[in-house]
């Protein structure tokens, strides 16, 4: 190992990046673009859901219930059917995605502190909307229940909705608050593994790798010369993404920079390792690109990045334990939203460290072996 050689390689890498018209935008505009797209599209809040109200009670209490729904901002009353049949038509015809039915006698029941029932019917054809709507409805009903009966008073139940559910930590259910922290990790994974594999494959494709290996340069020199510049770039990308998330999307950051940053750095080992593995599997840059995409898909699906993993079939669920992204997502989300400490997150850290280091070392060992040919 020679610091002079490593320094020269790093200098070379930065000169090349600065002259690559395609690379610079990819490195710094793409993370922002992804953040904005994911932030607004995936993370957009479900608001102004059309609500059909069938109020057969018409008491002060029933009106308060309807007000509770509309004043939340999540629902607007779009239909007031007068029978069950009309209510069904409203749902079938798409005039409403959520319907509530307030049965006769609800006001009496509330006044005499007896159990009461509200029917909530949700159009399940759009699973994302319906899931969110169910959550909102549960929250609203729980609130009303507390107002009517006082805290701890049970007895008001909604059809199919557990009124006891309360949405913790992210009370406004802003999806963007869970999306932005996850994106930090995801962008780090994509960009580091992509750029790293591209950089190595490019050298092989152009024949410069062979030329390098007639110089006294060692494998450690070469690897550090590649890893260090891309690590620096990844840190810059992370900082940029973090700032846009916190300043533009107003995502609260309640945790510790050290725990978040440390977790992400540890996770980057996995990303770098994947990059090395991809670079060894590919002869051309297009191949590397496609291999990266191929590897990203399952990570995206099985990590809880966009879709919950708890509902997966058992064998698929077991597979998620192998994916380092799964652990880092828990770490960054918990840090952003709950301000969890390292002590609370150490099992995640341990698992992630184990898998990240394993992937990195595997990449490293294959890398050293293959470069000679």
């Amino acid at each position: 190992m020679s610091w002079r050689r490593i320094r020269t390689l790093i200098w070379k890498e930065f000169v090349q990046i600065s002259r690559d018209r395609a690379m610079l935008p990819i490195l710094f505009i793409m993370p922002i673009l992804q953040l904005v797209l994911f932030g607004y599209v995936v993370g957009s809040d479900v608001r102004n859901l059309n609500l059909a109200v069938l109020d057969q009670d018409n008491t002060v209490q029933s009106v308060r219930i309807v007000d509770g729904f509309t004043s939340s901002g999540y629902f607007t009353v779009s239909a007031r059917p007068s029978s069950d049949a009309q209510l069904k038509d409203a749902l079938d015809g798409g005039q409403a995605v959520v319907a509530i039915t307030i049965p006769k006698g609800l006001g009496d029941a509330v006044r005499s502190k007896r159990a009461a029932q509200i029917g909530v019917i949700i159009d399940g054809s759009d699973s994302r909307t319906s899931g969110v709507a169910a959550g909102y409805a549960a929250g609203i009903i729980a609130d009303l229940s507390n107002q009517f009966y006082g805290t701890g008073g049970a007895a008001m139940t909604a059809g199919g909705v557990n009124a006891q559910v309360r949405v913790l930590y992210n009370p406004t259910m802003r999806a963007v608050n869970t999306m932005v922290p996850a994106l930090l990790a995801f962008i780090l994974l994509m960009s580091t593994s992509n750029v790293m594999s591209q950089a190595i494959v490019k050298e092989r494709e152009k024949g410069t790798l062979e030329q390098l290996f007639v110089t006294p340069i060692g494998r450690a020199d070469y690897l550090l010369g590649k890893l260090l510049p891309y690590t620096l770039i990844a840190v810059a990308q992370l900082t940029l993404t973090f700032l846009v998330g916190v300043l533009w999307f107003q995502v609260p950051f309640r945790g510790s920079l050290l725990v978040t940053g440390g977790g992400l750095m540890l996770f980057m080992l996995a990303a770098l390792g994947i990059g090395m593995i991809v670079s060894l599997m590919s002869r051309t840059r297009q191949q590397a690109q496609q291999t990266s995409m191929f590897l990203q898909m399952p990570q995206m699906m099985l990590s809880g990045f966009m879709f919950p993993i708890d509902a997966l079939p058992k064998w698929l669920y077991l597979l998620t334990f192998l994916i380092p992204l799964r652990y880092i997502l828990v770490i960054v989300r918990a840090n952003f939203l709950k301000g969890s400490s390292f002590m609370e997150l150490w099992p995640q850290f341990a698992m992630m460290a184990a898998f990240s280091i394993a992937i990195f070392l595997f990449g490293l060992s294959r890398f050293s072996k293959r470069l000679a040919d």
Partner: protein
Amino acid sequence: MTDRTDSVEAAIDVRALTRVFRNVKAVDDVTMTIPRGEVFGLVGPDGAGKSTLIRMLATVLAPTSGDALVFGHSVLTDPHKVKPRIGYMSQAFSLYGDLTVQENLDFFAELRGVPHRDMASRSKRLLEFSGLTEFSKRQAQFLSGGMKQKLALAATLISEPDLLFLDEPTTGVDPVSRREFWRIISGLHRDGITVFVATPYMDEADRCDEIAFMTQGRIILRDTPSGMKGRVPGRVIEVAVDDYRGAMRVLRALPCVHSLEVSGDMLRVLVAKDAGACEGTLRDALAGAGFTVHHVTPSQTDLEMAFATLIPTAAKSTDASDGDILAVAG
């Protein structure tokens, strides 16, 4: 680094070197020594194994079996001792296209540990003698083919190696640049640098101290250029005729004609040494068959002719098939 006083005599000592790719023996049991200070030319058809041999000697490819000593150091066990002494120019341009000429030189100077106090003077001198001074700030990808090759050579020379491996360095380079390139190599030769060059061009092979002919992974002939030509059993007569295809048929039928080849718009005819005044025989035969004969003159044996005659025999003796060697070597 420039110590040329090692006790080892040969620059390269190749011992039963073999490289197998899948089931093909790209280099098949090659043994030879190359003395210091020599310009050694390796010729042979595409796919003969020239590049594979060079890449093993330059320590970028591991041999399947056998070994080679470069200045006494094994490429197998001591590549790190070989690398500082050699320069290697691969067949394809392999510098950084997005770095400038000067940056490429600096980059390889730094990697090869050229002392900082020598860097500026060396790169200035190399730029001058390769004629690249005025292009020093240009990105390498925007240089012409010939200039790229000269830059590649300059980059390998920055560390003042004792041995240079050049793999078809002038392929795709215009004739003027090719001449210039060889002028540089002659200069290196005078400085005592050993040059190992693979080339498809016979005129380039002619400028080497020694040449070896390689085919199907084996070296089947090795001699000096004049030695190669001297081995040809006969002399060459040049024939210019209006229809050379038709003329070839007539000439082949003559008993004194050993073989012939087309060179440009002329025929080069190899006749037996003792054939006496064969020129007259050729002229009469062609005129008799109704061809217009422009001239029939004695000429020099060249390498092309030498290989065409010598290879079939040599190939047979090393029991390689001789099927299409002639066509490719021609």
